[in-house]
Structure formats: C-alpha cells, structure tokens
C-alpha cells in the first residue's frame, strides 16, 4: 500500500533486485570473517573479567612460550594514543592502560597459527588486578564521594546539558492541564547477525590494509592512522559485505586497531573475529535512559510547554554519547509544535560496556515516554489520539522551536493513511475486551548536518567512471553498504540520469583505497547526502557526453537525451550517425551483437569520447546547505539536518487478562521518505523497523549481575524476535518532495523504528487500561499491573520505573538546580 508522486522515470521508484543479493543468496558473498590470506594468523583478545580494577602487573611469559603463538601484546608493547568517537572526548585506548573500566575491557591480545592456540594462549596470561569499587548505576556514579571512572570527570558526569526555548514556567502557569510521568528503557545491543571482524595486513612497504565489518570506512581509516601514527593514506580500509550494523559498527573499535597492531608486530596478516559474548561486551548500542517529562496543554489540547529531565547511563566510555545526549533533547522538537521547552540531562559513566548509537539514535526512549504521556492526556481530555496528534502537528514550511526548518513533512498524511488502512475509526473504543489499538508518530534526521570531526571537507564525494569501451559505468563511493541497500540506490540514480539499465552500473563502495571520502552509514545520511553527490557526478558524465555529441552534430545540447541505453537525437543526422557507427563497428568487428540501427548507443558515443580524450570521469560532492538551528538551544546543531522524515505507527494487540500475555496482532507503519527510490527496499526498512521496534518494546535487555557481568550474553538469552513473535505488517510509503534531497528523496532506515514502541504501549493501555512505562514490556509487568488496577478499582494503572529510577532522576534534579539554560 503506497501513495505515489507521479514522475516519469525508468529506473527510479521501481523495485529492482538489489546489488549483491544474488551473491548473498548463493554463498559467494565474502564477509570479513570469510576472507583468508596466505600465512594468516588468528587474533584473540583477553578481556577484563572485572568491572573496575587497577592493573598491577601482566605476566605474558607463559603465553608467549606456547607453541604456535606469534605475538602477545599488552599496553606496554603498543601505542597508547587515545581514540574514541567525538574528537573532544577521546577516552579509549586499544589495550587497557593501568586500569579496566568494565567487564570486557581489552587487556591483552594474541596472534597465533590457529584460533584454538590463540584462545589457549589467552588463558596463560596472568593479570594481577587490584579491585576498585564498582559503579553500576547512575545514582551511585553521581554520588558526591563516588570513585571516578575517568579522573577528569567529577561525579562521573560525562556530559550535562541544560536548554530552554521560550518560557516554560510561564507556559506552565497558564496551562489547563499538566502531567508528569517517568519512563525508563534498558541497555540494548545491536545484535547484528554478523559479529564484528577485522583482517589486517601490514605489508613490507609499510602499508596497512584492513578489511573490516564497518559502517564507516573513513572514520576507521582515520582513527587507525591516528593511533598507529601513520599517514592516513597508508591505511586502506575495505568494508567487504557487512552483516548488519544498526549503529554499533559506526565508529572504530579496539578490535580493528588491535588486529592492525598484531599484524604490524608479526609481519603476517591477522584475522580477528569477535564471538557473540565479545559482541555484547563491545556493545556501543542504545543507552539506558531515564526520563521525567512534564507536559502542559491548553484547554483545546494544544501542547504549550514541555519539561524533560533525563539521565543516560553511558557505560565506561564516551563513545557516541555526546551526540546521544543532545539528540535525546532535540528529537522531541517535532513532529509537534511546542513553543516552550526545557531540557536538563546528564550522561553518566558507569562500569558497564559503553553505550553508543543504535537505529533511531537518541530518539526511541524519549519518544516512547512522550507519546505515552500524550495519549494519557488525550484520554483524560476525551480527545481521539489521532486527532490529538493532528491538532498538534507541525507541517512542511514550519520551523520548530529548536529552529529546524521542515522543508518537507507529510506527517498528517502518514497519520491519515495509517488510520484508514488500519480501520482505526472502526476499532478505537469498539474492540472486545482484551484487544486494543494504539498510535504514535515521530520524526528523524536525514543525516547529521555536521561531521564528527571538525572539517571543511564535503560530507560525500562520488566519482563515476565510464567503462573505457563504453559499456556501462562504475560508481566509486566511500559510502558503506551494510545490508540497507545503499549501493543500489546510488546505482539507480546513476542509471536514471545516464539512461542506462541498472545492470550497466557497478558500484564500488566502502574501500578507502579506491573510493573518495564519504562519511559512511550513520544518521540515515546516505540516500540524501551520498545520493546528492552521486546525482551530481552522474550529471557531470551526462553533460560531457551530451556536450561532445552536440559539438559533433553542431546542434544544441537540448536536442539530445540519454535514455534506454541510447543517445536520443543522434538519429537527426543520419550521415553523422553512420560515420560514428561505422567507425565503432570497424573497431569492434570481431564482436557479435553490435547495434546496427536506431540512435547511437551510449557505448558508441562514450567510446568516441574515449578515443578523443581518454576516460570519462564525473565527480560530485555534497556538503549540507546552511542548516537552520536555534542558537538559543545549545547543541541543537546535533539534530539539525538538511531534511526530516516523519512516520506513524499503529499497533493492534491482545492482552490475556488472566496471564498478562501480550500478542502483537498487527502493525501498520506509514513513513514519509520523500521521493521513493527503491520501493521494495523501503518496505524492507519499514518491516525491519517494525520488528526491531517490537523487539525493544518486548524483549531487549542486557542484564548485569552485581559484579557488572552480563548474565545473558547469548542470542538465546538476550531475546530478539523470531518468526513466531512478528505479526503480519503493513508498510505504507508516503511520498513528499524534499527540496534538499536528490530527486526529492530523504531518509528511511532509522526514523521508522521510533513510533513502534509507543504505539504498542498505547495499544496495551487501550486493551486493558495498563500503561507500562518501563521497557521491556513483559507479561509479568502487565499481570502485576492488572492486579493492582483491580485492587484499586481504578480505570487505569501506570506501571512506573522502579524506585531506583526515581532516585536517579532526583539526583539529576538536585544537580541541575540553578543551572542556567542559556
């Protein structure tokens, strides 16, 4: 089910088979862990078993003497230069220096002739630790006398934010209704099916080649070069096929640097593949958030003020967290018009694996809290939840309170389509007992306006080279294909502009040795940013071809067009055409299947140009336009984007009143992606997001014991949905024409996860009068709430986060007292 903008395209807006998919379906696609090199060694990492400890001594002598072991490294042997995600917050080293900060911190590394020997060697390394007090939750970490996880961060505060726009107190004084709620999610993992892996080959000329399962070849190249003190161009990072990323592979990891160090040390290629437990220990996925939100509405149900107090449990390192804490504030500035907003937040270090970015970065848990609260208010005021959202919605042409300009924004269409296709009107308040329907909306960025390190370089450069014999083109981009289908999007754009078939376009991506710089696959930036650069590069190729033919024919460029593999218009002068064609046919006289009639082909003309002046190259670059954001709202640059997507989810559920068992019966998701480039891929993103959102709503939680050890580090115990958990779903593509997007396109991969969790929460309330404000939603929580509701003979029961969450938020409130927002 879709709505379509009517444009006359040959390749765009279709549903082709994606690039690389036949290779994946036949087992030919090589992922990093599938690649072997001659003389390759196997790497393994020794992780800290303790959550917080000083390293007194490491004895590697026995490990070194094990036959088959080629290198044993500790911080003593290697570069201790710091790295991380935000350049201002480099706080990690490849191997632990003096202390470990979480279970899983990397302490030593081994390279050996086979994997078993490498793992055996790890067991022979003796580390003498001095245990330190462990801080596992923000309230302990924020205590005045708490031990510091990083010496330079008092109270273990990694970052704090205090923002205000408008006048919140005044709005609250004028409000008709004010409501405060708290909410918490759980620390989750990316659970990409392919574990992180790296294969490093440091050759005799001093060049390092690193194959790695990454979303960001460029950042990995740069980070490895910094730590190993190498010129950037001596490091070549190649992302082969990548088995999913979702954010956890969006910055350089220690395993990549360690693989390189082991290769440098042994002069052999070294492959290092994390096992599933190590994937969990590396983590870098969604933070655990705590929220207290207060919403003020006027008597018509319009939101006039909003206060948000939040704490982010960041784990042991900064990782993406500086961006996360700002997104956690700014991703509430739409899709509703709220003139007065206040945000106070703390990201806190704890002795757990670092949290980072995950699909819908910084926008999932806050959205769930906000939308659940909005629904409760709508309910109290007897306003239909869909109407409540339409009433408060922003639309294209509006500027949010944080100063973001919404150049396209079909939120109302999303709401209406989702409402109609799910038969909301027929179902809302009319379903049998135990069945419920719930709605939520949200919005997201199409790429971060600012790059991660301060730079003036374009965010994307793309080069397109026409094959020298003229048969098709190759697109070179640093932009990473991680399974989301980006290669195909760029190929489709190129094929459209050059009038070629999709098969005529090859894409080489994610290889820093061959491709110009692109910042990579994160913040849902590729379709818009790399897409714009691709479009420009393809147009540059097209223009050269048209200019040449126009010159030759001595008629204006506008008389020619590239379409269907031909240069249309060349049939206008048969004499000229024959000269060019005969020449081509003579040169290719031993080939078969030559074209003998109709307008000149792309190949014939391209070969003509090659004969004249060599390869035809087209270049495109993209840097975001001057993006608007409010200087008043500090950090609103995080969240400022050239375009914003918006989406609506409607969930239908059944709750068993006797057991609390929850069944998700159906999900509908309508998403405004601008112009739809690859329709089947977009549906795939929507469906994947519905499943991923359902997963975070119902299942995902990394559970730790009181020593900071994760007790569920397997895909059996850390639950993600199976075929049995996912209902049938309806993915609805809503189009708009985004002026900053190539062909009007914008993001699809991330925003669509955001409304899924609150739609489920709201559907449960509709089904049984229970509002679950702590993820994951389990049948135990529902049953407990149903009993409590019954005991109190109340119409509703709110399942709140535990008392510990209140303490955390109270401490944050205390700390932020008197903090000025401006």
């Amino acid at each position, binding site marked *: 089910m879709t709505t379509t903008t009517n444009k006359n395209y040959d390749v765009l807006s279709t549903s082709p088979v994606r690039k690389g998919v*036949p290779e994946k379906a036949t087992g030919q*696609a090589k*992922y990093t862990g599938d690649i072997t090199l001659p003389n390759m060694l196997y790497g393994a990492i020794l992780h800290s078993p303790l959550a917080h400890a000083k390293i007194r001594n490491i004895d590697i002598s026995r490990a070194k003497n094990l036959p088959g072991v080629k290198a044993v490294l500790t911080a003593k042997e290697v570069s201790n230069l710091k790295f991380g995600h935000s350049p201002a917050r480099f706080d990690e080293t490849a191997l632990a220096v003096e202390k470990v900060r979480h279970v899983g911190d990397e302490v030593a590394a081994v390279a050996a002739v086979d994997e078993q020997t490498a793992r055996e060697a790890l067991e022979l390394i003796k580390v003498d630790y001095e245990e330190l007090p462990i801080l596992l939750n923000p309230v302990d970490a924020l205590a005045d006398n708490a031990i510091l996880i990083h010496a330079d961060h008092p109270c273990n505060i990694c970052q704090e934010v205090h923002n205000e726009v408008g006048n919140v107190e005044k709005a609250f004084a004028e409000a008709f209704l004010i409501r405060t709620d708290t909410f918490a999610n759980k620390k989750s993992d990316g659970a990409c099916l392919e574990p992180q892996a790296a294969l490093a080959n440091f050759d005799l000329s001093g060049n390092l080649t690193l194959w790695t399962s990454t979303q960001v070849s460029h950042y990995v190249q740069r980070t490895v070069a910094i730590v190993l003190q190498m010129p950037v161009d001596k490091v070549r990072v190649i992302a082969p096929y990548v088995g999913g990323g979702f954010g956890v592979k969006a910055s350089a990891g220690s395993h990549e640097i360690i693989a390189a160090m082991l290769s440098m040390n042994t002069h052999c290629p070294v492959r290092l593949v994390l096992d*599933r437990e190590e994937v969990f220990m590396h983590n870098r996925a969604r933070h655990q958030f705590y929220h207290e939100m207060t919403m003020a509405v006027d008597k018509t149900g319009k939101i006039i003020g909003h206060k948000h107090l939040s704490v982010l449990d960041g784990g042991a390192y900064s990782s993406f967290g500086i961006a996360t804490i700002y997104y956690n504030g700014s991703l509430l500035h739409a899709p509703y018009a709220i003139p007065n907003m206040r945000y106070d937040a703390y990201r806190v270090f704890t002795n757990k694996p670092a949290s980072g970015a995950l699909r819908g970065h910084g926008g999932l848990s806050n959205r769930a809290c906000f939308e659940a609260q909005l629904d409760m208010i709508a309910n109290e005021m007897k306003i239909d939840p869909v109407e409540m959202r339409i009433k408060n919605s922003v639309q294209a042409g509006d500027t949010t309170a944080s100063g973001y300009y919404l150049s396209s924004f079909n939120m109302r269409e999303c709401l209406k389509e989702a409402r109609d296709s799910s038969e909301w009107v027929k179902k809302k308040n009319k379903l049998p007992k135990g069945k419920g329907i719930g709605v939520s909306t949200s919005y997201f960025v199409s790429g971060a306006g600012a790059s991660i390190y301060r730079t003036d370089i374009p965010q994307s450069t793309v080069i397109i080279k026409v094959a020298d014999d003229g048969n098709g083109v190759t697109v070179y981009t640093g932009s990473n294909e991680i399974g989301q289908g980006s290669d195909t999007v760029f190929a489709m754009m190129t094929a459209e502009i050059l009038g070629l078939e999709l098969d005529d376009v090859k894409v080489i991506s994610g290889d820093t040795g061959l491709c110009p710089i692109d910042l990579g696959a994160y913040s849902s930036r590729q379709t818009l940013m790399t897409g714009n650069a691709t479009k420009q590069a393809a147009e540059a190729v097209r223009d050269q071809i048209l200019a040449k033919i126009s010159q030759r024919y001595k008629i204006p460029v506008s008389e020619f067009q590239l379409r269907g593999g031909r240069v249309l218009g060349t049939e206008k002068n048969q004499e000229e055409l024959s000269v060019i064609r005969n020449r081509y046919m003579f040169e290719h006289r031993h080939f078969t299947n030559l074209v003998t009639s109709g307008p000149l082909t792309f190949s014939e003309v391209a070969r003509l140009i090659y004969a004249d002046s060599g390869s035809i190259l087209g270049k495109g670059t993209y840097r975001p336009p001057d993006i608007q954001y409010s200087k008043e709202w500090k950090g609103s640059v995080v969240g400022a984007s050239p375009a914003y997507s918006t989406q609506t989810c409607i969930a239908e559920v059944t709750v068993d009143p006797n057991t609390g068992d929850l069944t998700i019966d159906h999900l509908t998701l309508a998403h405004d992606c601008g112009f739809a480039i690859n329709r089947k891929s977009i549906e795939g993103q929507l469906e994947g997001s519905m499943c991923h959102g359902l997963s975070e709503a119902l299942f995902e939680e990394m559970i730790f014991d009181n020593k900071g050890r994760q007790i569920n580090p397997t895909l059996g115990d850390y639950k993600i949905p199976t075929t*049995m958990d996912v209902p049938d779903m309806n993915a609805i593509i809503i189009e708009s024409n985004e002026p900053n997007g190539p062909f009007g396109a914008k993001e699809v991969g991330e925003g669509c996860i955001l409304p899924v969790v609150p739609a489920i929460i709201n559907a449960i309330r509709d089904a049984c009068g229970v509002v679950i404000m702590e993820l994951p939603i389990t049948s135990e929580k529902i049953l407990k709430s149903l009993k409590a509701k019954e005991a109190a003979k109340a119409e509703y029961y709110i399942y709140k986060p535990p008392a510990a969450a209140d303490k955390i938020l109270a401490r944050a409130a205390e700390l932020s007292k008197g903090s000025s927002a401006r």
Partner: protein
Amino acid sequence: MKKYIKLNINSTEYELLVNDNETLAQLLRGPQLNLTGTKQGCELGDCGACTVLMDGKAVNSCLVLAMQANGHAITTIEGLASNGKMHPIQEAFINAGAVQCGYCTPGMILKAKSLLDVNPNPSRKEIREAFVGNLCRCTGYFKIINAVEIAAKGQANKEAGN
C-alpha cells in the same frame, strides 16, 4: 586427537582430517574446504546462520561435531545451484526482497529447502513455526515468509506442468 572422516559434501566425496573438537561449521569454513557460504552468528545453536542440510535435514552445523558427520551427506548453500542455475528457492528469496545484509540468508534458504522437501505447501503459520530457530535482524521476516510461499507455489506449478 585427529582422525580421518568421510563426507559427501554437495555431491562430492571427501576424506578429511579433523580434530575431535572441531565442529562441522568450522570444518566447512576452514582451510580444507573454504565453504564460507555457511555463516556463524553465535556458535551456540541460537541463530541458525550456520544451517546446512545433513542427509536432507536442516541442522545447526555449529552444534554438530565434524566427527559426528562422518559418513553423512551434507548440502551447503554452495551446493544448491545446479548447472549454473540457481535453485528456485534462491530465486524466490532474491525476487521477494527477502535478503538485506544477507548474513542469515544461506541458513534461511537451506531451512526453506528442508521444509519444502517434506511439506511442499506450508501455511504461513507452518512457515513461521519451521523458521523459529533462524534469526534475522534486518527484514522483520515478512518478506522471508513471502519468499518461502512463493517458492512453494513455484514448485507446485512446476509439478503441475505449468
């Protein structure tokens, strides 16, 4: 301890020297065979990425010791296409958009084959039940279930001579 075993892999007979603690997945992916189309997502039997067919039945090859496979016939994803033509299940997965990152795909396709071999016309519910041990993080399973349905229909049509 090392020992020689005999395996029929994708219709070719092999005699291979294996370690007693080596899994079938490690053997397939290792230097002797290099059949890396079989993936490993967990090595604990949780994800199904390592699914191969042993005597036609789907097994998690990370849970089978190479020595236990001695004398059996194994089909991996590399053995599914014949005469340069993809198996209809592979085509169905490709055309239905059931492949995103592709890491679960070889296991999914082999699981589909084992299902359709015994139940050529499964309902959506039966497909769901059969695939419960094969995780996919990307697709939400919707198009995977569609692909299995399409493959089943394709086979039925072929048998009816259409």
